[in-house]
């Protein structure tokens, strides 16, 4: 399994649909600071 990215490494790819029907792409946010927060479980 892939290890989590370490500080100083390029961020892995992230491109997914959103709840509102759009797509979010991390590469498209270049130039901004981005908090990427993976949720554990909504239940």
């Amino acid at each position, binding site marked *: 399994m892939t290890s*989590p990215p370490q500080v100083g490494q390029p961020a892995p790819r992230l491109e997914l649909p959103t709840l509102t029907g759009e797509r979010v792409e991390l590469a498209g946010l270049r130039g901004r600071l981005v908090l*990427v*927060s993976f*949720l554990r479980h909504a239940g």
Partner: protein
Amino acid sequence: MKVTSRKDRFDAAGATAVFVSHDEPDAVRGLMLADVNCPFPVAIDREKTAYRDWGLRSLPLPMIWLDPKVWRQYAKLLSSGERMRSSGGDQRQMGGDFVVDRDGVVAYARPQRRDDRPPVGELLKVIEAL
């Protein structure tokens, strides 16, 4: 979610946030849009592709069921009149928090081990220092 109430500080730092969930969209919609009115994108990753790409693991089932916090949570729900039910999601999947800088490089990495999410204040300090 406390992050959602700090959008002004994200804006001031030139930052944004992306939340990712592997759960059913309806469950996430209830939590993130109806309950907390999340001002940031909430992405759905039912196949958990991004979770794998970012190295976020699933805990072995015994580690979940041997965790006293799980049983305390069930006891709390049952005592409040809730019924035992499946939420339909993968309770073994761990989350994690990462801050990516303006060049697409990871500036902070905190993959979740158990129930050890960083406080929002810690995340904001990282962001505001960049």
